[in-house]
């Protein structure tokens, strides 16, 4: 008998599928502490998957034992069920398997596909970039001959940092340093790994608006985090303004490209970045930060404990 556990997990899954991500995406504190918010998003993603699959599994196996490990063991060793197995139990088992396979499969597929694209890009860059055309800032930075002001990095075992000639022309030296520091922060903190599950799950769960929202939130937070890290390494009288100016200059140069969808004029992610650089809010107090982190840990612990402990009565 595991129905209370299944119900609790189901409720948790429902909360994590809609109200919790919606609240976090709307909240204003994440831009004061992007790192803590990123941890929370990872916890939401992981706990969400765990609780929905767990709920289905617990219900599907409820006739086989009193706790999930026990029921699972009985099921795997093909012992007869202790109670009547109804059709909905089979449906729940199947759904759990399908969902688990889909989430993991899509994650794997997305990782492989991305790695392949990155390798192709890296090969292309190594062939196309003129030898000795290192950007003025850093030896390991590649300079791509293109008028659009673009900077990006290709993560991996041999990460690449790429600046376009348009970017170099558009920015002064301090601003270029800021851009490079920003990109380097992405690479050092492996932000692509934080983003990967959300890219994959957005693809896996197109019906879930929260998946979209979570992806966008994580993408924007990663940029803010990189801005914050970049600031710590920048010299100069006003690094915040330098970085903000670099962002605006880079955005302006690519202007007219493709305004993707209808970005709210005041709420677009670029504007948020520039605003928080120019008029920084106070950093989150230590207590609030620890509360956020504790919530993240609790989010992971609750479904884990529900799954492992004997059934609630």
């Amino acid at each position: 008998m595991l129905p209370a556990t299944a119900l609790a997990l189901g409720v948790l899954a429902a909360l994590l599928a809609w109200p919790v991500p919606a609240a976090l995406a709307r909240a204003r504190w994440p831009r004061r502490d992007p790192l803590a918010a990123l941890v929370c998003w990872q916890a939401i993603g992981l706990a969400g998957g765990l609780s929905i699959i767990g709920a289905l599994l617990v219900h599907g196996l409820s006739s086989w034992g009193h706790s999930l490990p026990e029921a699972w063991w009985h099921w795997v060793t093909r012992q007869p069920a202790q109670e009547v197995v109804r059709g909905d139990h089979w449906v729940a088992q199947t759904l759990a398997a399908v969902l688990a396979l889909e989430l993991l499969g899509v994650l794997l597929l997305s990782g492989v596909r991305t790695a392949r694209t990155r390798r192709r890009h890296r090969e292309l860059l190594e062939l196309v970039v003129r030898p000795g055309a290192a950007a003025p800032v850093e030896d390991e930075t590649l300079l791509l001959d293109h008028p659009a002001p673009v900077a990006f990095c290709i993560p991996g075992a041999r990460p690449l940092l790429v600046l376009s000639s348009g970017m170099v022309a558009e920015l002064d030296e301090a601003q270029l340093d800021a851009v490079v520091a920003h990109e380097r922060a992405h690479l050092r903190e492996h932000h692509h790994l934080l983003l990967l599950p959300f890219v994959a799950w957005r693809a896996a769960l197109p019906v879930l608006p929260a998946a979209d929202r979570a992806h966008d939130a994580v993408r924007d937070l990663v940029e803010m985090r990189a801005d914050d890290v970049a600031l710590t390494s920048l010299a100069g009288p006003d690094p915040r303004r330098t970085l903000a100016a670099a962002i605006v200059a880079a955005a302006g140069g690519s202007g007219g490209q493709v305004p993707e969808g209808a970005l709210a004029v005041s709420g677009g992610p670029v504007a948020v970045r520039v605003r928080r650089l120019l008029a920084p809010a106070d950093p989150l107090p230590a207590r609030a930060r620890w509360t956020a982190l504790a919530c993240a840990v609790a989010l992971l612990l609750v479904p884990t404990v529900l799954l492992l402990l004997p059934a609630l009565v």
Partner: protein
Amino acid sequence: MNTLGELERTVLEHLWAVGAPLTATRLRDDLTDRGLALTTVHTVLTRLEQKGFVDHDDSRPRQFRALGTREDHVADLMHEVLGQAGDRQAALARFVGSVGDDEMRMLRELLAGAGNDAAPA
């Protein structure tokens, strides 16, 4: 030191520079200062073909030509990175995404406003 990557670039640069199909023998002779064996030239050409930078015809001996100019390849890459095609996630971390005209105007005002605030100080 002739690493494969370096050789690939050298051969491709040469094909671009000549702008006409070349045989492997001709490539070896043109790049004689590199001291390449014919097999090495073929290895390099095969790798370039696999990567989609070089193509060969059916004549005898085979003639190799560059597929697309350097500018074509850069344009393709930028097209992907700028988010109009392909897998946006791959080149993560593009420094700034696309911005509409209205947002651009507002960004400039934001920056100008902050500059005025800072100026008297």
